[in-house]
C-alpha cells in the first residue's frame, strides 16, 4: 500500500528543526548575549530588598499630629550565605546571647536557607549604628529599615488602633502581604489600612558571595517604587479626648461626643484605656498579653461594644414617638401616685405635662405614654403597634450597627415582636407585659455610641449623620460619601420642641430637676439623666446631653459604670466635657477636682 502522504514527514521534520532553532536562539540570547543575566553568572545572587513606605500620618480635626512614624531596623539573615563568623563579637554588637543567636539561626534556617528571614526585630538606632559599621564582616546578614508608629499623646488608643504583624490567614488571603509585613489591626489603622499603608517597593540587587551589594539588577528595570501612605485627618479633638480620658481616670465607662451638624466624633473615650505606645515595636506582644489579661479589660472598647439598657435617657425618644403617633400632645398630663401600677417613681408634683415629665424623669408618665403607643387603635394589634414603635427606634440607629468607620462596633438589641411571641406566645402579650421598655429598661440594649448619635438626632430636631472618626482619607480631602447623607428619624421637627424644652429643664428647671447642679454660665445645656440597671453590682450612671440648645455644637453620652444615679457622676462629667469643648476652659474648679479625685475602680475592687 502506497502512502500518498509520505512526504509530509519532511514538513514535520522541518517543524522540529524550526522549533528547536527558536529554543536554541532564545537560550543563546538569554544565556550568552544578554549581559544582565550573565552578570550574576559568577555565583552571584539577587537580593530582593523591600522598601516599606512610611505609613500615613494621622491628624486631629484641628490639624494636630496624633500619629507619626519613627525609624526601626530589622536585622535580616540569609542562612545559606553566612560563613564562619565571630559569633561572640556579633552577639556583643547586637546585644544578644550566644544561645539566642543559635536559636534564631536555627529558626531562620528552618524557614529557608536561601530566602531572607528576620533575625532580630527592631533594634535601636544606636545598635544599628554600631552594627552597620561592622556588617561587612558578617556575610549573610543585613539590616532592613522599617517604620514604627509614634504617638504624640498617650491617648485615644481605642480610636487609633494599633499595627501588628500579619498572620498566616492574611498572607494567604491577600497577596499584597508577605510574612513580617505590618497591617492595621484595630481602629483607624484597620479601617483605613489601604490608604495608610501606601505601596511597598522592591529593589533587586546583585549581591556577591560576601553579601556585598554589587549594583542594581538589570539597571533597576524590574524595581518598583514605594509609595508613601496617605495622611488621614481624624474628626477627634485631641484636647477634648485627652480631657475625657483624664476625667474617666480610675472609673470604668465611656464617653462619646459627636458634632450633631456633621456626625463627626469629637471624642470617644473607653475607660480604662491604655497608652497606644504600649503596642508598638518589640514590647508589643508582652504588653498585649498583659492588657488582655487585665480584669478591667482595657482592650475592650466600651463605647462601641458595651450594650446597656439605656434607662431613663430613653425617655425623650419614648415621648417623641408618642407625640409623632399622636397618642399624646405636649400638654397631655399623666398622674403619678407615685409610680404607675407596679413601676415605682420618686416624689414630684403631679400630674405633669411632657416637658415637666422629662425634667422630673417621671416613670409613670412614660409608662402611660408607651402604653398608649402600643394600644393605639390605629393598629390592629399590640404587636403591629410595637413593630411601628420599633421602626422609629431603628430609624434612630438602634438595634443595628450604625456602619461607622470603627471596626468593631456592635449592633445593640431591640427585640422584634416575634421575640415576645416566642417568649409569651403570639397575641398573649400586651403593652403592660413589656411596659418597662417605656422607661428604657427590659430587654433593650444600646451602645454609648448609639446613645450619642440619638442625642445628636434630638439636637438636630429630627435627623443625624452616621457617626465617623475620619474626616478625610487620601488625597481628595473629602469626607467619604457614606457619611454625608442625612438619616431621618421619621419624627416631625415640631415634636422636638416640648422634648428639648424638657431636656433644658433637666438642667435649668430648679428644684426637682434631675441635673440642676451641672449648669455652665452662658450656655444652655439640654440633657437627660439615666440609670442603667446592672444585675452584677451597683447601677451604671448615664447622662446624655447636647449644647448649646439653639445651635448645638456637641452631643454627648457619658456612661460611668457602678456609679449609681445618672446625676451623680455622668452628668458633671458631661458638663465638664461640653464646657471644655465650647468655652475652652473650666469655670467650676471644684466640680473638676471632685471628679478627678474619685476612684470608683478601687471602691469596686474593695467590694
Amino acid at each position, binding site marked *: 500500500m502506497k502512502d500518498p502522504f509520505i512526504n509530509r514527514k519532511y514538513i514535520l521534520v522541518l*517543524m522540529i528543526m524550526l522549533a528547536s532553532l527558536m*529554543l536554541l536562539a532564545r537560550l543563546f540570547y538569554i544565556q550568552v548575549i544578554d549581559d*544582565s543575566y550573565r552578570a550574576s553568572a559568577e555565583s552571584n*545572587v*539577587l537580593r530582593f530588598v523591600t522598601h516599606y513606605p512610611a505609613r500615613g500620618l494621622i491628624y486631629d480635626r484641628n490639624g494636630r499630629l496624633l500619629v507619626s512614624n519613627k525609624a526601626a531596623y530589622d536585622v535580616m539573615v540569609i542562612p*545559606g550565605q553566612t560563613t564562619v563568623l565571630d559569633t561572640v563579637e556579633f552577639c556583643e554588637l547586637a546585644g544578644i546571647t550566644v544561645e539566642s543567636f543559635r536559636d534564631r539561626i536555627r529558626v531562620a534556617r528552618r524557614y*529557608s536557607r536561601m*530566602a531572607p528571614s528576620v533575625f532580630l526585630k527592631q533594634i535601636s538606632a544606636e545598635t544599628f549604628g554600631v552594627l552597620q559599621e561592622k556588617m561587612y564582616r558578617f556575610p549573610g546578614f543585613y539590616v532592613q529599615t522599617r517604620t514604627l508608629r509614634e504617638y504624640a499623646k498617650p491617648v485615644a488608643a481605642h480610636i487609633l488602633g494599633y499595627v501588628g504583624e500579619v498572620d498566616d490567614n492574611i498572607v494567604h488571603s491577600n497577596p499584597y502581604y508577605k510574612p513580617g509585613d505590618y497591617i492595621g489591626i484595630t481602629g483607624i489603622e484597620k479601617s483605613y489600612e489601604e490608604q495608610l499603608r501606601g505601596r511597598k517597593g522592591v529593589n533587586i540587587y546583585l549581591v556577591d558571595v560576601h553579601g556585598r551589594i554589587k549594583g542594581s539588577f538589570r539597571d533597576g528595570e524590574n524595581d518598583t517604587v514605594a509609595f508613601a501612605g496617605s495622611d488621614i485627618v481624624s474628626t477627634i479633638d485631641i484636647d477634648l479626648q485627652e480631657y475625657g480620658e483624664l476625667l474617666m481616670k480610675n472609673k470604668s465607662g465611656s464617653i462619646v461626643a459627636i458634632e450633631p451638624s456633621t456626625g463627626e466624633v469629637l471624642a470617644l473615650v473607653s475607660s480604662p484605656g491604655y497608652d497606644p505606645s504600649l503596642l508598638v515595636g518589640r514590647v508589643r506582644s508582652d504588653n498585649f498579653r498583659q492588657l488582655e489579661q487585665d480584669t478591667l479589660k482595657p482592650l475592650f472598647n466600651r463605647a462601641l461594644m458595651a450594650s446597656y439598657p439605656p434607662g431613663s435617657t430613653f425617655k425623650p425618644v419614648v415621648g417623641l414617638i408618642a407625640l409623632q403617633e399622636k397618642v399624646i400632645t405636649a400638654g397631655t398630663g399623666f398622674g403619678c401616685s407615685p409610680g404607675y401600677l407596679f413601676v415605682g417613681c420618686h416624689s414630684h408634683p403631679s400630674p405633669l405635662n411632657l416637658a415637666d415629665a422629662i425634667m422630673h424623669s417621671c416613670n409613670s408618665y412614660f409608662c402611660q405614654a408607651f402604653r398608649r403607643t402600643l394600644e393605639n387603635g390605629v393598629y390592629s394589634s399590640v404587636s403591629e403597634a410595637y413593630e411601628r414603635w420599633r421602626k422609629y427606634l431603628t430609624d434612630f440607629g438602634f438595634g443595628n450597627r450604625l456602619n461607622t468607620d470603627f471596626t468593631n462596633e456592635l449592633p445593640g438589641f431591640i427585640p422584634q415582636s416575634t421575640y415576645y411571641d416566642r417568649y409569651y406566645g403570639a397575641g398573649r402579650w400586651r403593652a403592660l407585659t413589656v411596659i418597662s421598655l417605656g422607661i428604657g429598661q427590659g430587654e433593650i440594649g444600646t451602645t454609648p455610641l448609639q446613645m450619642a448619635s440619638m442625642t445628636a438626632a434630638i439636637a438636630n430636631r429630627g435627623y443625624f449623620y452616621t457617626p465617623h472618626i475620619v474626616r478625610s482619607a487620601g488625597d481628595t480631602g473629602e469626607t467619604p460619601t457614606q457619611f454625608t447623607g442625612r438619616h431621618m428619624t421619621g419624627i416631625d421637627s415640631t415634636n422636638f420642641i416640648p422634648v428639648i424644652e424638657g431636656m433644658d429643664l433637666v438642667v435649668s428647671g430648679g428644684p426637682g430637676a434631675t441635673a440642676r447642679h451641672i449648669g455652665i454660665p452662658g450656655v444652655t445645656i439640654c440633657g437627660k439623666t439615666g440609670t442603667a440597671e446592672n444585675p452584677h453590682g451597683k447601677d451604671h450612671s448615664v447622662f446624655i446631653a447636647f449644647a448649646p440648645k439653639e445651635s448645638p455644637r456637641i452631643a454627648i453620652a457619658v456612661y460611668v459604670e457602678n456609679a449609681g444615679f445618672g446625676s451623680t457622676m455622668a452628668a458633671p462629667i458631661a458638663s465638664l466635657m461640653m464646657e471644655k469643648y465650647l468655652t475652652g476652659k473650666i469655670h467650676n474648679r471644684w466640680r473638676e477636682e471632685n471628679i478627678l479625685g474619685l476612684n470608683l475602680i478601687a471602691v469596686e475592687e474593695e467590694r
Partner: protein
Amino acid sequence: MKRSVNILLSVDWLTIGVYLLLVFLGWLNIYAAVYDEQHPSVIDFSQRYGKQLVWVFAALVIALIVMLVDNRIYFFFSWFIYGGVVLLLVLVLIIGKEINGAKAWFEFGGVGLQPSEFAKFATALVVARYLHSPAINLTRPRDLMTAVALFMTPVMLIILQPDLGTAVVFISFFFVLFRAGMSPYILFSGLLMIILFLLTILFDDLFVAIGLVILAFIIVVLQSRKFLPPLTGLAVIAALVAGGWLTDRYLINIGGIEVAIIISLLIAGLGLSWFIFRYKLKWVMVIYLFLLGSIMYIYTVDYAFNNLLRPHQQTRINIILGIESDPLGKGYNLNQSLISIGSGGFSGKGYLQGTQTKFRFVPEQSTDFIFCTVGEEWGFIGSIAVIGIYLLLFFRLIVLAERQKSAFARIYGYSVFSILFFHFFINIGMTIGLVPVIGIPLPFLSYGGSSLWGFTILLFVFLRLDASRTEYLL
C-alpha cells in the same frame, strides 16, 4: 501469519537508551532543585528526589509489563482503554481531590494519580485505531470531525477540571491528522489563527482588521496582475470616505463618515464580485472568504480573551507579550525562571552550584520548571545537550514510525512523537519566555509519578508495537 520474534533482539534499544538517559538526567536535576546541604542523602523518601527514585523504579516495572503484553492487545482493546480513561476523567470530576484549584487527582494512600496523564496514551491508541482503516479519508469532513471528536472528548473533560495546560496538549493530535492526510490548509489556518490571536491581543482589533484588508488587497493585486480595476475601486472608496469625513468636519455633522463607510462596503462587495466573475478568479473568492473569517475571528478572540479567560490566564499571556510587567506579581515565575536560566551563562555554574534554583523562588521548580536547573547549572552547553537528546528521540521516533508496516502502529508512533514534542516545545519555551506559562511537565525530566508513568506507557506501547513490526499486519 505469525512470525515469532525475539523481543529482546527486535526492540529499539536506541530509544530505550535515550529514555533511560533522560530519566536519569531528570533525577539529577530534581536532586539539584531540592538539594540541601543538610540532607545530602540520596535515598531520603521525604524529599522529592527520594520519591522520584520510587516513581522511576515503578516506571521501569510498568515499561517491562507493557513490553510483555501481546502487541495485538493494544490494537483490539484500544476502545476499551479509551472508554476506561474517559470514565476515569468523569469520575475524577466527582470524587477527585482538588489541588491548586483543579479537580485532577485521585488519591490512593498518599500517592496521587492524574488520569489526564493516561488520557494522552489512550487517546493516541484510539485515534490510531480509527485512522488505520483505509476507508477513512481525512479530506472528508465527516471523518475529520470524528477523528477530532475522539481527542476533543477528553479535552472537554480536562477543561472541566479545569486543567487548561493538559488540555492544550491535545492540540498536538493535529500533527498526527496532518501526517494521516488532513488538508494542509487546516494546519496553516491553525497557524494563522495563532498568529492572529497574538496580534489581536497585542494591537487594537481595528488595526489588525485593516492590516488584513490591506494585505489581502496587495495579494490580489500582485497575484492577479490586474492593476486597474482594484486601484480604481480603491480610489472611489477613498474619495467617498474622504468626502464623508470632510462633510462631517466642515459642513454639517450628519454621520457622513458612517454613511460613506457603509456605501464603500457595498461598492467593495459589488466590485469584488464583478472582479471575480469578470476574470474568473476563483482563488480571489477564497482569499475573500479567508479575510472575512479572519476578521470575525479577531473580534471573537478579543471578546473571548476579555470575557472568558480567567484573570491569571490573561496576565500570563500579557506578560509573555510584554504588555504587563510585574516582576513580583504574576510575572514572578517567569522572571525568576529567566534569571536562573540566564545566569547560567555559557557553561553553567556547575552541578549543585546553582544559587537561583535554590532560592525556592520559582514554585514548581522540580516539576514544570525543571529546565531552570538545567539552564542554570549546566549553562548553554547543557541546554544544547538536553535539547539535542530530545531531538535524537524525536527523529528516531519518526524513523520508527515510518518503518511500520501497519498504519495503526505508524499513526500511534506519530501520536507519541507529537505529544512528546508538544510538551518539549511548550515547556522549555515557557521557561525562557517564548510561550505563555502553561503548566505542563517536561517529559521524563519533570518530577511526578503520574506524568512519568503516563509518558513511559505512551512510549513503550509504541516500542512494543515496533518490536513486533514484522509479526502481523494489523
